[in-house]
């Protein structure tokens, strides 16, 4: 059975239509496998080759990968949630209630989105500390670390703006507590808060602003920086390999075969 399926699949990858889409062509030679990465606009952010020991669990603990995984789950569940949600007060609350009790699998969708969001915040911190304790933040990776700090802030903002959307007591007062801090900024504090909330306190304008940030601006910004983050890993010479293992220190991109 599986042999026949794979035979059909192989035949499929030989067709003209398939070849017009996947430029790398089919086949399992090293060249083809490299092309699978190199000839794909998204995957070519990654290196075609990776040091063997970097895939062992005790290096990165896969924390960056898992962070990206939660982000993916959040985008998918988030789009589905958007189908049932109006960003207006108090309709937002009614929609959330409907998700819990009326929409089929709505409760599950909401749970998955919520718990994945918590997981992402946790994982992004864990990833940061793991990168630090591996020493992978040092030259030439300093700038990628800074990109990482931007991603950390974006993750926190994504989670924070999403927190308001159910428009329940928990959401309302958490955002009130948070936005009060903004007004403590010297001189411009009250203006910052006004800009953030679209008013002097958390109201329907704030809900709309947070919705736009949460569903449009911040995810796009995050995607943009994730792309730079991955591209920099490749350009900085692949994942950092500890030098005690008598291996390469920094083989930055300098026309050498790309790792």
């Amino acid at each position, binding site marked *: 059975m599986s042999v026949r399926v794979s035979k059909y699949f192989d035949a499929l990858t030989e067709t003209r239509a398939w070849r017009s889409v996947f430029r790398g062509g089919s086949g399992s030679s090293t060249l083809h496998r490299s092309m699978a990465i190199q000839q794909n606009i998204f995957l070519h952010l990654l290196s075609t080759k990776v040091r063997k020991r970097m895939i062992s669990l005790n290096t990165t603990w896969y924390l960056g990968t898992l962070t990206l995984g939660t982000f993916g789950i959040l985008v998918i569940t988030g789009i589905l949630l958007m189908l049932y949600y109006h960003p207006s007060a108090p309709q937002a609350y009614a929609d959330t209630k409907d998700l819990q009790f009326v929409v089929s699998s709505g409760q599950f969708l909401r749970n998955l989105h919520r718990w994945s969001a918590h997981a992402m915040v946790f994982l992004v911190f864990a990833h940061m500390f793991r990168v*630090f304790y591996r020493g992978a933040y040092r030259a030439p990776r300093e700038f990628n670390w800074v990109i990482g700090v931007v991603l950390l802030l974006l993750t926190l903002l994504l989670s924070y703006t999403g927190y308001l959307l159910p428009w329940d007591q928990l959401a309302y007062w958490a955002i009130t507590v948070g936005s009060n801090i903004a007004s403590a900024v010297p001189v411009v504090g009250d203006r910052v808060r006004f800009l953030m909330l679209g008013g002097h306190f958390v109201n329907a304008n704030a809900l709309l602003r947070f919705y736009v940030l949460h569903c449009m601006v911040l995810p796009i910004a995050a995607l943009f920086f994730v792309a730079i983050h991955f591209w920099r890993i490749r350009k900085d010479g692949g994942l950092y390999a500890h030098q005690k293992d008598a291996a390469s220190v920094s083989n930055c991109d300098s026309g050498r075969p790309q790792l």
Partner: protein
Amino acid sequence: MSDATGKDFVAVVASDQRKAPVRVAFVTRRTSAQVKSQDEEVIQAFPEVLFRAAIAVQLLAIVLVLISLFFNAPLEGLADPSHTPNPAKAPWYFLGLQELLHYFPPVVAGVLVPTLVVLALIVIPYFNINVEAEGLFLKDRKRRLQIFWVSSGVLCLFLLLFDVIVALVPTVMTVALMAVAAYTPANTSSNFRRSLAGKPLSFWVMSWFLFELVVLTAVGTFFRGPGWSWVLPWRS
């Protein structure tokens, strides 16, 4: 290379430089020779790495789906500006800051501290320029010990003065570990102590941040109740 020292020595036949160029690298103490090797064993990103990543993400998805099947996301009553819950808590990852807000004015806890944390995170890779990761107390020992004791003393006093026991505990933990590192004899047989002694300043700053983050967030999340008073999470 040979003439520079002006010393007398005999050139061996095998060291004819035109035939076999000899390179000499001087390895000073406490630096390691850095070998730039390109021939480490590598594997293809596709499929070997990508498939592993996919499996990792799938395992994560399974865990999250299971959690979502058994635990419901919280949903309270409709937002009501006229009715403040007690305590009103920020999302959990900000509860460390909210805990600090309990002790310090908002400009300090809400603006100064987060700004400094972000700035510190940004400069950390630029500031630890030594790739060799020099142990903090290995060089210039006397002066660094002085600075270390004075600054940790001042910091602890400051936290005591404002009664911030919650932030004091992680600080004392960090100081204690640093003291262990500082007074580790060079010939110690303990691997743990030797590795501590080799840690640079950035390691200590980051570890202090990690301890504070964990303790403050845990206290804010689990041990604070009405009026931000102490509560025990298992008795509510």
